[in-house]
């Protein structure tokens, strides 16, 4: 069983002019399903195509066109639900959300208001070793993405590209359980991590494949606890929704800025209006999107072009059985099986590619040693090159070969670092490099002894000093290592130096 006991982090407090305020945050995360084709049409989801190239007549809402659902997208929503320990609804249905916008060709978005495919779940968001927030998930539903309007190509016209229209999104709706900007960012990061482990969304925030609407409100200390006891929202402040955020940094900034705006209003005796706002990172402020508010009557009703979506428990069970190990479980396993620290396990499980690399290296080797080499040497070098594990020139087999040489005592740690650099820059096999370049560690005591004798004989003054202060013996070790080009076995050198000096 997973040990997920943790302490709850303190909510973020902002000091107002009069008193302290706490933040309450809920999020609606839109995660693009990693499918080949769209939710209701056979057009491609590929990013970066020519305008309107990935558009079927269904996406363009040509007269008489009808939606047909993509099974893979349904499966990914179920998989995501299972990954978030959520209830899967075997019966769900699609509704139309009606509004007019040029990038919404049908005049409605097909979504799931009344009967979502996934019900309540949860996400554990670590804020540090042993400290975590459990964020409740209210629901996940499938819906269509909208197209894209380009406003800067012409002074009087907007240009509409429907490539994105109809791409499948999973909207993951949290309860207002997030209590600060850092928690919000950590929540997104955790969600992204889980989605990527599941393979249901590529998590690419830059391309907009993962983005969030953030609901922010403020309350006095103590009010949130009352809400928790009663689930009565009246204990909380009026919330504003900041739309369409696709950067963790901006999400944090926007929450902070929005909370301060609300505090200023309330402390001045005003009232926060419930509305949709947009974050402007250049100005560092949120502003109202009145245009969206104007006709805020979506007239949801069940889509008559689609029948209710019924799925079988057996199908759900099969998806559950094929679920990969998820980050929490994997981290716990790394700590238990490999003796890794919480920190090291966290870093290695952050991206599934890291974890896969680690496991390949650790297979049949010392896990801690593998972790150290990956975290310190490999990640250090990748970071320096502004690269990541997916572009690592070093394979797990290469690094594993290097670690094998260290474990066998064939090379010292210092030489290993040199070999690592050669492997990284030039490629090759660690054992061959060591052999070809004569880097093998000298373990022949006779040869080492001769070197020790030479150094002692050449430095009588140092010998005197070392005999008075044994700590100085290290100088002799260093000299011997230098003389052997680092190839001498350091343990053997140490032992011989001590013996010869009579320490």
């Amino acid at each position, binding site marked *: 069983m997973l040990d997920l006991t943790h302490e709850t982090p303190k909510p973020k407090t902002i000091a107002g002019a009069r008193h302290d305020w706490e933040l309450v945050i809920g999020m609606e995360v839109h995660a693009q399903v990693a499918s080949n084709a769209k939710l209701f049409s056979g057009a491609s989801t590929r990013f970066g195509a020519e305008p309107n190239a990935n558009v079927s*007549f269904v996406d363009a809402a040509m007269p*008489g066109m*009808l*939606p047909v*659902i993509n099974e893979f997208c349904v499966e990914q929503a179920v998989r995501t639900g299972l990954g978030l320990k959520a209830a899967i609804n075997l019966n769900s249905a699609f509704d139309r959300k*009606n509004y*007019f916008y*040029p990038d919404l060709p049908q005049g409605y978005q097909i979504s799931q208001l009344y009967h979502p495919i996934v019900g309540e779940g949860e996400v554990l968001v670590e804020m540090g070793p042993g400290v975590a927030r459990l964020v409740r998930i209210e629901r996940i539903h499938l819906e269509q993405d909208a197209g894209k309007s380009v406003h800067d190509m012409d002074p009087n016209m907007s240009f509409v590209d429907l490539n994105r229209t109809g791409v499948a999104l999973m909207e993951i709706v949290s309860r207002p359980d997030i209590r600060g900007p850092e928690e919000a960012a950590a929540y997104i990061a955790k969600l992204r991590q889980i989605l990527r482990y599941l393979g249901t969304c590529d998590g690419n925030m830059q391309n907009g494949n993962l983005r969030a609407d953030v609901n922010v409100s403020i309350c006095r200390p103590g009010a949130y606890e009352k809400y928790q006891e009663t689930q009565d929202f009246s204990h909380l402040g009026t919330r504003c929704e900041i739309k369409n955020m696709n950067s963790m940094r901006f999400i944090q900034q926007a929450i902070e800025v929005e909370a301060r705006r609300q505090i200023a209003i309330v402390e001045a005796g005003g009232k926060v209006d419930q509305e949709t706002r947009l974050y402007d990172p250049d100005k560092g402020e949120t502003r109202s999107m009145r245009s969206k508010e104007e006709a805020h009557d979506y007239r*949801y009703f069940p889509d008559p*072009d689609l029948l209710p979506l019924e799925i079988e428990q057996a199908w759900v069970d099969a998806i559950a059985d094929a679920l990969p190990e998820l980050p929490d479980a994997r981290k716990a396993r790394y700590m238990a099986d490999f003796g890794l620290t919480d920190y090291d396990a966290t870093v290695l499980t952050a991206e599934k590619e890291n974890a896969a690399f680690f496991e390949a290296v650790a297979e049949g080797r010392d896990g801690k040693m593998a972790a150290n080499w990956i975290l310190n040497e490999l990640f250090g070098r990748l970071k320096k090159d502004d690269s990541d594990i997916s572009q690592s020139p070093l394979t797990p087999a290469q690094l594993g070969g290097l670690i094998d040489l260290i474990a066998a005592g064939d090379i010292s740690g210092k030489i290993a670092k040199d070999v690592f650099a050669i492997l990284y820059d030039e490629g090759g096999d660690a054992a061959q490099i060591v052999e070809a370049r004569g880097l093998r560690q000298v373990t022949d005591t006779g040869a080492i002894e001769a070197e020790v004798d030479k150094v002692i004989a050449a430095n009588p003054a140092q010998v005197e000093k070392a005999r008075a202060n044994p700590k100085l013996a290290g100088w002799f070790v260093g000299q011997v290592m230098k003389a052997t080009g680092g190839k001498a076995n350091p343990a053997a050198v140490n032992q011989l130096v001590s013996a010869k000096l009579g320490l």
Partner: protein
Amino acid sequence: MMEDLNRLSLSEARDALRRRDTTAEAITRACLEAIDAAGALNAFVHKTPELAVARARAADARLATGDAPDMCGLPVGIKDLFCTRGVASQAGSRILEGFVPEYESTVSQKLADDGAVMLGKLNMDEFAMGSSNETSVYGNAVNPWRRGNDETALTPGGSSGGSAAAVAADLCLAATGTDTGGSIRQPAAFTGTVGIKPTYGRCSRWGIVAFASSLDQAGPMTKTVRDAAIMLRAMSGHDPKDSTSAQLPVPDFEAALTGDIRGKTIGIPREYRMDGMPDEIEALWTRGREMMQDAGARIVDISLPHTKYALPAYYVIAPAEASSNLARYDGVRYGHRAALAQGDGITEMYEKTRAEGFGPEVQRRVMIGTYVLSAGFYDAYYNRARKVRTLIKRDFETVFAEGVDAILTPATPSAAFGLGEMADADPVRMYLNDVFTVTVNLAGLPGIAVPAGLDRQGLPLGLQLIGRPWEEGALLNAAFAVERAAGFVAKPAKWW
């Protein structure tokens, strides 16, 4: 050489083609001539003579191989609601002005695949919203039938008015129609033709301009019941592009036409006896009952208690769906876009485009639909109507479970009325035209209108038979028995 080839029924033409008595091209040319001479009926609104002749020649070649489907070489008209590749498809609306689809509706494609020859597109009420073909952007279609020597122009009914007029006037051998609340059966009854709305899901809706998705069904409009059986078979079948299309085999409906209805139980629903129903309709219904009894059927009185609420439920559900289905007509991707004034933005573009592009009836229904779905009214109107719909369907299920094979009703509450006669009436009076037909759409059942007699003024009247779901074969056979017993052979006198 055969005469008056355009007057042939589908089955006659099919058989003649197989006997090599004539050619598809000859029949097609006869129809094209008849169409050109029938401008006064305003039935065909987009003609495709070159395409028709080309297809007819291809059909003749196929027929010559001796292996051709029933519909091969038979010229038909296609309702303007069907999208046809490369041919204007406007749904009778200004908002689709200039729209030429890059795709072909599944139903018209199936007909084309079988070798049927499209003569052109047929007039209809705008977006199929109407019962008189008076809401069309093309102007009224005119019924070839007249009240004796009275020259008053009559409606062919609606929304498939052009289809009904064209078939009745022998401009084509048959036509496609669509039926959301009675739009095949009411015009068929008004023009002395046969029209069947199959079970919901029998014909694909893909490529047919949507009015109310949960109610819309395509069907054939023909000169005889046999023709309806032949053409329905060609139009039917599962379509993976329509999620509501039924994955069921399509039987040979024509083979079901034995005319033998002995031992069948025919229900007469008492709720269809409406206050103020004209005597002639009443008498027709009684005669229908007697004809079926004489043919050996067992007649039982039945009750469909929620009938009265079908029309009000329909006028919530259909406009609600339409308000959403018609949101795509926004002037962005196809069709009409209003000329804009200086400073007009996107909202003005929408509002002006839709005000100019939609006629008054469509505007009215879109707005009613918008209203019944709007915040605070959804449960009171839309959800309530859906619950009533459940009850209406249950009424039918109950009588079918009790052994009723088909239900006999009048098709319409009156014969064809004069164009313009309802102009000053409130919209609800026009809606009452669908009072006998709309229950069938709400319950998703098959229904057929068969001509069964003439009224005193010489206008055709139709009876409606309602069947069990997916049992169009048995329904057509019952209609076949009525058709034979009624012996309806009248044709409108040619005045156009």
